[in-house]
């Protein structure tokens, strides 16, 4: 087994644990590279057919290419897609910086969806290497009734003995990609030929390295027009992955506050 085989096997194990032990899971599909890999892994875990719904938290502000991608692959991959609009910005915490407020809409949208559909588990494609607070995450991470993440009191988690049972009102976030890195993701996309939104590839010397909504996501300078070029670029870059995400940089703890409140 090489590195990618090992990562794949571990993620499949986590997805199967989630399905076996969580009553009503839902898989979050942000349409970015990571969640596409996650869909792919779920298809592998469940032998071609994902047995639970896939949810897109739609702020209405995605790039047109992203919507086109969603509509095509929801059909091609035979996904049971839920896509409800997120609540308006007025409903978010006004003390948050502007870009963070936009992201907070997703947190609210998620809470509403959890209540509406009764999901008890949310499978999300975050990775430890993306952002420092994500590095502190558990694979099965409980969220209190208000969606809050209590990083001071996380369950012990070792030897893949995840904690999936919680009192009513608590939902679990499941993170099957926690142990992957950005470069692993691209190597896997290349190996498996997983489709991605074309915005990741350079056009006019610019490309998106991390994909979010219009207005809070910005492209980076790049000549990488295909996956091998992206991998080469990542092998020598000095820039962090989320440099183009405004909400991470508004204040020292902006992202931490978002995550504690329930953001992915």
């Amino acid at each position, binding site marked *: 087994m090489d590195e990618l085989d090992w990562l794949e096997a571990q993620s*499949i194990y986590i997805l199967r644990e989630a399905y076996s032990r969580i009553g009503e899971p839902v898989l979050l599909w942000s349409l970015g590279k990571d969640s596409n890999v996650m869909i792919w892994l779920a298809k592998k875990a469940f032998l071609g057919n994902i047995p639970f719904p896939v949810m897109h938290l739609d702020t209405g502000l995605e790039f047109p290419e992203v919507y086109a991608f969603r509509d095509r692959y929801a059909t091609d991959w035979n996904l049971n897609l839920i896509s409800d609009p997120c609540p308006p910005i007025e409903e978010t915490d006004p003390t948050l910086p502007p870009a963070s407020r936009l992201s907070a809409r997703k947190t609210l949208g998620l809470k509403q969806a959890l209540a509406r559909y009764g999901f008890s588990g949310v499978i999300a494609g975050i990775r430890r290497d993306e952002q420092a607070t994500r590095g502190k995450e558990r694979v099965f991470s409980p969220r209190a009734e208000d969606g809050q993440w209590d990083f001071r009191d996380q369950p012990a988690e070792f030897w893949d003995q995840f904690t999936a049972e919680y009192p009513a009102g608590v939902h679990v976030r499941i993170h099957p990609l926690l142990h992957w890195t950005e470069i692993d993701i691209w190597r896997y996309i290349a190996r498996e030929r997983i489709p991605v939104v074309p915005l990741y590839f350079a056009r006019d010397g610019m490309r998106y390295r991390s994909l979010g909504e219009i207005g809070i996501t910005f492209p980076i300078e790049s000549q990488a027009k295909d996956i091998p070029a992206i991998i080469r670029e990542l092998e020598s870059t000095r820039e962090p992955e989320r440099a183009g995400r405004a909400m991470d940089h508004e204040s020292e*703890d902006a992202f931490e506050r978002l995550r504690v409140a329930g953001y992915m």
Partner: protein
Amino acid sequence: MAHDVIPLVRAPHGRAMPIVIVGHVDHGKSTLVGRLLHDTNSLSDAKVAQLRAMSAKRGLDVEWSFLLDALQVERDQGITVDATQVWFQTLRRRYVIIDAPGHREFLRNTLTGAASADAAILVVDAKIGVSEQTRRHAYLLNLIGLKQVIVAINKMDLVGGDRDRFDDVASEVGEYLAGIGVRPLASIPVSAKHGDNIATASASMPWYRGPSLVEALDAHEPLPPPAQGPLRLPVQDVYRLGDRRAIVGRIESGRLSVGDELRFAPHGATARVASIEAWGRAERQVSAEAGESVAITLDEELFVERGHVASNLDGRPLETSVVIAKVIWLDRQPLVAGRRLSLRLNTARHDVTVDAIERVIDVDTLTDAAADRVDQNGVALLRLRSKRPMLVDSFASSPRTGRGALVDGYRVVGGCIVEQTLVDSVDNTAERRLTSDVRGANGGDSSPVIWLTGLSGAGKSTLATALQRRFTARGLRSHVLDGDELRRGLSSDLDFSTQARSENVRRVAEVSHLFAEAGMTVIVALISPSAADRAHARKIVGGGFREVYVRADLETCRSRDPKGLYARAKAGEVRQFTGISAPYEIPTAPDLVLDTTGASVERSVGALEQFVDTNFGTGRAAKALNPEPEAGRLAKRAAAMLRSSESHARSIAKAVSWRATGSLDTFVVALLITGNTRLAGGVAATELLTKIGLYYLHERVWALLPWGRRRTVELQGR
């Protein structure tokens, strides 16, 4: 001090080796991590700038620990709250550092981090020397089986790079490690703050000739999952793929190939691997090894569910209800004997009682003593007893399957490794082993008691024995309590008066209860005509009781009448005969009604089996992932037809004799037409061979079609 920084090369491809950094709080773990990242050129410029800004804001020099202490509270208080992971790479390979907090109350986070590492760096302050948590963490590493340990004697700058001080501390650590059976890979004098001996050799300690920290790490290999050991495939789930069932799970050790015969514990049934299923793979997979998450199908339908373990026929896990486990107790509330907990072993979950606290281990002095409680973060040997047998390996023989977690309600309260597996002669009988599994599926309080009630001749005993046969074939043990048999023994003193019948029902219910208590699935075949008696039986048996009304019209029962009872009753020879001269109270709310009037035994017992499976999870319906393809089902039925019934030899003999006659005709006709003996012989021989084959198949199919054949299975009433 100037330092060479390893040139930026991003070539190594391969599994990132997970390493954990442990040690006493404030001995410099986080700083060491920051330094490792910096000196291997693994930090982005933006990250360094961010770090400088965060440090300056707090009036500090570059504070490397902020890299890992990502949370506001951690930076403000200068402590690490939870484990985190960061990546770096050397010329040799990629690493992922799991930084575990040293603070005492966060030991569970340390354990969480350390459990997934292949190697550890134990950080010790050169000035302070070995502290309580140095020992505790080292002990913990050993407990969880981490043997690749590098000792970093840190803050050498604070002792002026003094060689004697280093030797003292190094030997102190070495002695402790030797006491727990660990030989460190290296002991290195470092200064995380200044980068001495981290990535490159230090000029400030010329007396040290050993490897730098990075060199020491590079000299060792990540540990692959044990592909060479005995096969262990703990079952995670069962999925339905059309009419096939795929057993999914991760191979913890060993390997398997298509065609291998596997044994499934606890019931011990065996079957061969028919296929390894995968989506999105170009070529068909024929074998898999430790570390892989697989989905396999078997050549025979077996009852398999989460918690079962597949192994080879030899070298299988032990089944026992008592284990001695070494436990690290993480809960604030002390552990006392008698405490009930859940033990998670692989994919199984067992209700266990702490039978006894055998010894509590003092990790400072490495002595052990008897004690009546284990405090938070304490280590102890416990005797754990489970209600039903557990499938265990000792940690020494199979580390990945010989370890588990202790759970109290919603919380993981401890980690444990199986020190000793004990054979418990009382609880480990085959009977108990097999059916107690059913009982667990039923909520843990009682095994099923399937109470078949109905008229004499309705088919109760026939169904009971047929169901038992099916269970046995699936590796499930059950016991039949038949009215006739009981009348000959247990109730031989009773007549058929209403009162005596009540007493009979009561006795059968009590006996069923005892069997169920012992973990047996009980199938009762008893007329039990009184609704009140049956209600009483339900009360005696408890939660596992299911009333099944086996119905057949009186005419059918009479026509079956295998013992001639109906005839005798009609003649007045048998008094108080249910349905003739005594009432039968039809159940008003049975759990299941089976009408055997026109149905074959096969169909009825099929329905009954399904009922038990659904009610007690014995065959827990596999989760359907794909709709069942019609063609596959038909092919399977045809294959089944070719398998059974008439002896193969007989079919062959019939086919040969019939065809030989036919081919003789062909030969004669061909000879007449061609006049060529050889040609005619060839024609006849070809025909003979092809038709024998066809006829044989034809015979086999006919042998299975019931049409026009006399029913051979008789319903035997009581």
